[in-house]
């Protein structure tokens, strides 16, 4: 009954999440999208080396706010519920998501173990989105595939999704959030309240 062949799947997923996007500048690519990823990786490494606790969280929040297209990601994550929200709810939702993500990343990076990120191919897509492929190299074990979706927002290039071993951060949040909303009478407010509560600690 060796039914655990599939456990390997979870295993690779596991290693992926451990890595988060802890990364080091490595390899030089000419594409502006690749440069963006390398810069973000370098900023994060610098933060991990110099900051701790709340300061680290603040630093990561700044990286998220300057390099990620958070409102686009938030809209994708809320999916059809986005239309049901008013401006005030949207602001609260986005603020809560940024806080919880900054908190989560600060937590993950506290276990940083010297991984390096090598940026590989950049694949432009017809709709103006670029995909930046990268590998997170670990001291032990297989490198982890991380793919970055970069789009032009009109105010410069921003990251709009991160896929670790094929698992999209936005798509996972989307299922997570939508299921929570459905489980709470379709009320987006329930989700926002929950996220706000979580962001506080």
């Amino acid at each position, binding site marked *: *009954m060796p039914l*655990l062949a599939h456990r390997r799947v*979870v295993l690779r997923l596991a290693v992926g999440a451990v890595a988060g996007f802890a990364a080091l500048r490595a390899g030089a690519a000419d594409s502006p999208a690749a440069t963006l990823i390398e810069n973000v990786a370098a900023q994060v490494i610098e933060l991990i080396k110099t900051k701790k606790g709340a300061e680290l969280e603040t630093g990561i929040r700044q990286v998220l706010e300057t390099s990620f297209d958070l409102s686009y990601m938030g*809209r994708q994550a809320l999916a059809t519920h986005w239309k049901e929200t008013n401006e005030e709810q949207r602001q609260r939702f986005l603020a809560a998501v940024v806080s919880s993500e900054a908190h989560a990343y600060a937590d*993950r990076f506290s276990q940083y173990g010297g991984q390096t990120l090598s940026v590989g191919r950049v694949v432009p897509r017809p709709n103006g989105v670029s995909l930046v492929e990268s590998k997170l190299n670990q001291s032990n074990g297989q490198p982890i595939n991380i793919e970055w979706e970069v789009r032009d927002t009109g105010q410069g290039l921003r990251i709009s999704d991160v896929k670790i071993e094929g*698992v999209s951060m936005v798509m996972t949040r989307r299922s997570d959030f939508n299921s929570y909303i459905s489980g709470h009478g379709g009320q987006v407010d329930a989700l926002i309240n*929950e996220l706000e509560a*979580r962001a506080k600690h």
Partner: protein
Amino acid sequence: MIEGFKSVAAWARGGAAAIIAASVLLGGCATHDTGAAEVWDPLETPNRFIFSINRAVDLIAIRPMAVVYKQWVPEPAQRGLHNILENLGEPLTAINEVVQGNPGRAGTTLGRFLVNSTIGVVGIFDVASSMGMPKTNEDMGKTIGYYAGVEPENGGFYVVLPLIGPSNARDGVGLAIDAAADPFNIVTFAISNDVGWIAAAARYGATVIDTRSRTLFALDDLEKNSVDYYAALKSAYTQQRADQIRRKREKTDAHGELERRDKLALVP
């Protein structure tokens, strides 16, 4: 003890038959492409029930053992056990590679098995990788997905299996076929039924500890950072399996996923 394994055996056989029967029944209805949006989960209520039992078992037994294992067992021993388990899976991977129409790669996989089983001392050391024979992992769920003419996000209905975890109709059927076709099982059960079940139970137990010790951080993280852990894990599992199948279909990359998402018009 042996009586216990026999009843487990009966249960497992019944379970596998039930999965196949269910997937045949529901497979006929699975014409709507669930890959288009949320994962198709008609069994959500029973799934959540099994999920909560799995979590309870994990919390009181499996996770604590995995923590101790990871903390106290020397790293080379952990790696050795992991390699042994991977090595035992090579013949099954080779069979799947043949079914996938890639006998060349199956030959390499069998070469790995022979080299690692002998020079690598029953698989403790992965010497084959350093000899230019890289590792692959194949299973029947991927093989079915490779041939099925649907989006790989559509694996039929989602199902949470007791003591195994996230799966779906495609991967559940794959597991049952893999268990039946696995040369490891065929050889051990040929010796005697008791040897077969004891070997399978030992391998299962070792695999649980090995796998869980490697997923501690990731699953803790996913649980902590989701508002609905069940839904987040369902999505992550489905995406990762789809990515593996897409890589098989498209050989070099898996960017078909983006085309799929473009069509979804996620942003209203």
